């Protein structure tokens, strides 16, 4: 079966993010970028399913500027077969992303779409569930295990109290949680091979999707800072502070 995987280019998760002084957003100039970690897990899952003989082709899709081609190349170096970039200049909010992914799904007809549970920049946690809704497909959000059995998949989802098990009909949309797998590192030979894999560039208009943001960002600010704390010498002092100063125990 064919699988479609989405990958987003985001600020590297280990970079300290700085809010711009004019309050319009966060600093992205000269900042290290990376593939969204949950998307890495999504690509890894597809590649493992291909290695296991369940999947025949992996198409990766990214929505973003031209630089998102790098992210697509990384996914192809991990093992995806071809890439599609939907080039948008500004911000693409999750509903717009979901509409674009739906349009591509309509053309590509995959049996499974794997997306990250959340993009670690906007922290929206929406696009996967939205894509499932627009397609009228079942969804498995926050997935930590997936086993495909013909026309259904048995999935395990991470929920607040533990785990939930579902059987969903295929085609379906799955979003990845941290425990689904550990993504592989890309190797130099595979990076070289990925350069020769096909990469198509599309515009949202060609897919008939209006990507105008629905949410207007009025301002972006630094969060409130905590006041500096004190170092205590030993447990006795710590317990005394908790009892007498903070009065929380």
């Amino acid at each position, binding site marked *: 079966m064919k699988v479609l995987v989405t990958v987003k280019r985001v600020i590297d998760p280990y970079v300290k993010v700085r809010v711009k002084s004019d309050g319009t957003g966060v600093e992205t100039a000269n900042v290290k970028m990376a593939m969204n970690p949950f998307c890495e897990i999504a690509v890894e899952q597809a590649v493992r399913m291909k290695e296991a003989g369940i999947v025949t082709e992996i198409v990766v899709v990214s929505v973003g500027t031209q630089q998102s081609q790098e992210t697509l190349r990384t996914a192809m170096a991990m093992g995806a077969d071809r890439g599609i970039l939907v080039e948008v200049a500004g911000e693409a909010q999750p509903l717009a992303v979901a509409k674009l992914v739906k349009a591509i799904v309509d053309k590509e007809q995959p049996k499974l779409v794997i997306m990250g549970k959340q993009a670690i920049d906007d922290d929206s946690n929406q696009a996967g569930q939205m894509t499932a809704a627009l397609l009228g497909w079942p969804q498995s959000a*926050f997935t930590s295990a997936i086993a495909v059995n013909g026309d259904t998949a048995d999935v395990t989802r991470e929920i607040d109290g*533990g785990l939930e*098990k579902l059987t969903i009909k295929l085609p379906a949309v799955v979003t990845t949680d941290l*425990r689904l797998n550990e993504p592989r590192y890309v190797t130099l030979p595979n990076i070289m091979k990925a350069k020769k894999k096909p990469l198509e560039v599309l515009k949202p208009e060609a897919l008939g999707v209006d990507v105008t943001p629905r949410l207007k960002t009025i*301002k972006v600010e630094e969060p409130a800072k905590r006041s500096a704390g004190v170092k205590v010498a030993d447990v006795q002092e710590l317990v005394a502070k908790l009892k007498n100063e903070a009065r929380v125990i």
Partner: protein
Amino acid sequence: MSVLVIAEHDGKLLKPGTTNTVTAAAKIGGDIVVLVAGHQCADAAQAAAKITGVSKVLLADSPLYAGGAAENLTALIQTVAAQYSHILAPATGYGKNFMPRLSALLDVQQISDISAVVSADTFVRPIYAGNAMATVQSADKIKVITVRATGFDAAAEGGSAAVEILAAGPDTGLAKFNGQELSKSDRPELTAARIIVSGGRGMGSGDNFKILEALADKLGAAVGASRAAVDSGYVPNDYQVGQTGKIVAPELYIAVGISGAIQHLAGMKDSKVIIAINKDPEAPIFAVADYWLVEDLFKAVPEMTQQV
């Protein structure tokens, strides 16, 4: 204006985030209607009717809504959505699962995880793991919103709203619920606890979590963990606090053997008092701690259990 709040519950009781979501609804203004959807959940509907400020409770009781499966639940909410200006749910694993699905069905851009209400169409939400706070304005006709519980106080009890039966919606037949494996614990729930004791990779093993549990039991606290502790298999996934785990803000958060990565801080830095125990004097967790102790946790934690 009329606000629909989707309750999270276990059939009998409301989950903690629900009452905070009602408070967010009250800040928006207008009538507040609570939908309790589930299987055998009449008790939860009664509990919702007692929340101050709630004008009506809708009860949809059907096997279709057992578990948290999003497909049938969103189909149900769709049957009433047009009557509301705002639809809110807690930004928990429960709400995050189905709300975006509902939002897309209504052709609305959801506003995730709001921590403050500025006005009926403008909200504050954390982005980049809480390293920035964005104020966003929605132009959509219906505002679909998930609410970060730690940003709002819990609504008090004292109401007596009527409970109305809402007929079950269609069965989409898309997903079959095969049950849940819930971690069993006599300790308070993480998101409801007044005190949380959290362990990280520094705990070294799942077995060593026993020393944290002893401290937690003495304090009546919940036990949490960093992602590294969960990934290492020391504790189950539902212990994880952070950007991609649970967001907590207890009176007291005790971080033990946790370095303080931004993704962890994202989940606990709004706690009232934070203490950190770490043997590394440079551990970043100290930057958010009110009191910090540089010591081996295997010495400090048992000592603390004795002294509290």
